[in-house]
């Protein structure tokens, strides 16, 4: 099958029953997407498919053919390519607010946040809570994650007047 991930086009040979998560992790070496439950409960494997957050452990890899997949590894290169510096503002904000404790769930959370901020650049805290409700975090109690997303929104709105 042919998959487009983070702008790269890959020819992939994998069993038909493999999920997108399995192909990302075990064929393409993109291990930033995590497997926490393998049944769609935790959201750690969230990636963007055509810009929408999707649970990659519930999606067959074949279903992603012809669509643009973005994983956590794709954010910083895209940000640099767009003329930015450092990591994506969402990634920077998660680091600055202490939202990354064990970090295991956060690649999925950051991608959900990225999708939210594309659709709604100035969300309220309630909107952030709602957008991240599919991403379980066991370390933070979510407080610093909410701060991170609001910080990323504030930084972005300062940069693009």
């Amino acid at each position, binding site marked *: 099958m042919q998959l487009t991930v983070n702008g790269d086009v890959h020819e992939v040979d994998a069993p038909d029953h493999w999920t997108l998560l399995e192909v990302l992790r075990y064929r393409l070496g993109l291990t930033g997407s995590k497997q926490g439950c393998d049944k769609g409960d935790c959201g750690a494997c969230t990636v963007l498919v055509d810009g929408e957050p999707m649970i990659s452990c519930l999606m067959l890899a074949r279903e992603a053919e012809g669509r643009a997949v973005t994983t956590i590894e794709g954010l910083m290169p895209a940000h640099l390519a767009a003329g930015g510096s450092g*990591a994506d503002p969402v990634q920077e904000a998660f680091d600055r607010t*202490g939202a990354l404790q064990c970090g295991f769930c956060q690649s999925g959370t950051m991608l959900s946040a990225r999708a939210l901020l594309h659709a709604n650049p100035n969300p309220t805290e309630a909107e952030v809570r709602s957008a991240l409700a599919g991403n379980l975090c066991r370390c933070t109690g979510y*407080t610093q994650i909410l701060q991170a997303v609001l910080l990323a929104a504030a930084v972005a709105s300062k940069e693009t007047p």
Partner: protein
Amino acid sequence: MAARDIHGIEPPWGEFRHVGRRSRKVDGLAKATGAAVYTDDIVLPGMLHAKLLRSTQAHARISGIDAERARQLPGVLGVITGEDLPVKYGILPWTQDETALAVGKVRHVGEPVAAVAAIDEDTANAAVKLIRVEYEPLHAYIDPFESLSRHDPSIHEDHKTGNISKHVHLSFGEVDAALSGADAVVEGDYFFHGTTHAPIEPHCAVARYGADGVLTVWSSTQITHYVHRTLAHVLGIPAHRIRVIQPCLGGAFGGKSDPFSLEFVTAKLSMLTGRPVKLLYTREEVFYTHRGRHPMHMRYRTGAARDGRLAAVDAKIVIDGGAYSSFGLVTTYYAGQLLTGPYDFPAYRFDSTRVFTNKPACGPKRGHGSVQPRFAFEVQLDELAEKLKLDPIEIRRRNLIGARATTVNGQRITSNGVAKCLDFVEKESGWTSRRGRLGYGRGLGVAASMYISGTNYPIYPNPMPQAAVQLKIDRSGLVTVFSGANDIGQGSNSVAQYLVAEELGLALDQVRVVSADTDLCPVDLGAYSSRETFMVGNALIDACRKIRPQLVQAVAAKWQVDAARVRFVDGVVMDLQDASRTMKAAEAICLAEEKFDTLGATGAYNTPTLGGDYRGGTIGASPAYSFTAHAVEVSVDVETGRITCHNVWIAHDCGRALNPMLVAGQMEGSAYMGVAEALMENHDVHPSGLHKGPSLLDYRIPTSLDTPAFHSLIVESLDPEGPYGAKEAGEGPLHPSIPAISNAVFDAVGIRLRRLPFTPGRVLEALRARESAAAKSEPALAAGTR
């Protein structure tokens, strides 16, 4: 205690440059960009995948295992059973009752029985299904009270006390006399249910046995050192031929503190096949691996004088341990030993009994052994306040033990900021003007607690350092810290960077940390009992203070000035009497390397001698205790019985906050976990021995929508023995949230919730019981709107 163990609370160079700041974490951006490598991200050439066959029986003899068809399946390279790994182990040297795979019998559903290594996961899964196990079922113990009363059959046949795992009875002062002389006595039964850690990363291990006879195991463990020791013990390989590495870890909370089946199984299968082997648990397997919070049935009796001063506390506790000992001996002590602060009471007795049952073994979960008694006692204290017509905060204030004190069971308290914690939550929650005045259905509750910053008793008794680090410094200007500590997301590697940069006057990016690799790092006992900031922090300062004079002297010699004039600030060296004279720290390091040869230092820490002079008196004795108070605001829907927690004000005395951002993260994460245990989570086992909901959907952990607003209030009572005065922050702040919710529900609707979890059903039941009691005594009132 050696002088090396206490370093004072003062900044090393006049003022703090890094300590106290909201600095980034050393691994934050690696985690943010997906670059951080967790155990399951490791792929080795030729690596096989292993799977476990697990017991379908709660308690049974194994009369036969036929693995021949699995062995014949193409792609299968190894199959092992209990006979291949027969050596018993356990985290505590006195209670070694586990094997990597069941030998002769199984003691709970989900216990590993056999393991397969194959070329891929699908083949390994198919092979596991081909293994036939013949079981002869035995009576299964699900109710802990049955285990208390009968021992035939015994869950562990060679255990001297039958199904009793451990019994502790300790008494201090004249309990009976104090209770009979008390003005008010409250007595009640409390129940704390089972809960589990549910880290988002499932357990994983990768093992490689090399042709040179060296075994390397990468494991998602929070205790590299104990895994190292236990691998040597079980496999019969000398420890110097084993290397254990903890990669980046995806959450633990105590759930990765035991050596587990997968570490031995991957090692053994790698030895047999000559290839690297990986084993990743499924989420369901994580639930059956468990080692979570022990269910406790607790009976408390507390007496007080009219003014609220506590007279005595009497506790009787039955602990449901599950099938194996794990840390249970310590849990049984902690259930009593850790209750004796932050309040002063002159008489105390506890009797705690841990029993075996045919369920996944319990173990240490955040706030090990002390969260359950704290729940019971803090609710009982509220009941006492009600009886004596005292404000709940006031009764707590009247009983505070204070700083520089000794508890009734002989524990030494150094710093203590709990009074300030209570002041903080009282003020921030608007307690005085709001409690009792929020209208029917909404209320405020309070609770307080204390917790250890590590204990003075290592898991296996030995006189060697409890924490140790090594520094390597060279002409590149970089200091590499080799630390045996396990960073499990709490930030212990970041704390190491802050402390070394502070002590040596360097910029943060001049310090990098290598950790939790037994080949590279000195021995540290690992991430448990909230010991790392305190113990590793002191070891780091010790190491820095050995090397710092060399750096200073090298510069002083170059400048031909007195060493007292040389100051390192953020990577720049200055002459305090000549502002024009500076050099980069990297240059100073070159001068020192020239003058003193290759630069390096080791540092270590051991606790002082602590604890009461009686059997078990050292268990729970800590060099410093943290203190916490919470106020919570809840509303109760009297139609549905649903409790909503709106706000938690968390005041925590962590000593000096080395990085307030990381401290707040620990406080919020702890409070979150407490609220979750109180209102949503339930790790329960069906009478058949099956887990009632072994998934992250059925075991309900809160999402961002279920989580209340947390307000972190840091209190800094500088501890005389902590690194710059720091104490723990990772476990203490969990304790009060659970009783505070029960107490807030009382304020909201007048019912006492003494059984966890506080489900809508229990709330409705209590409301109905209250109403029918009221109807009996005052029929007219009960007909009203309440």
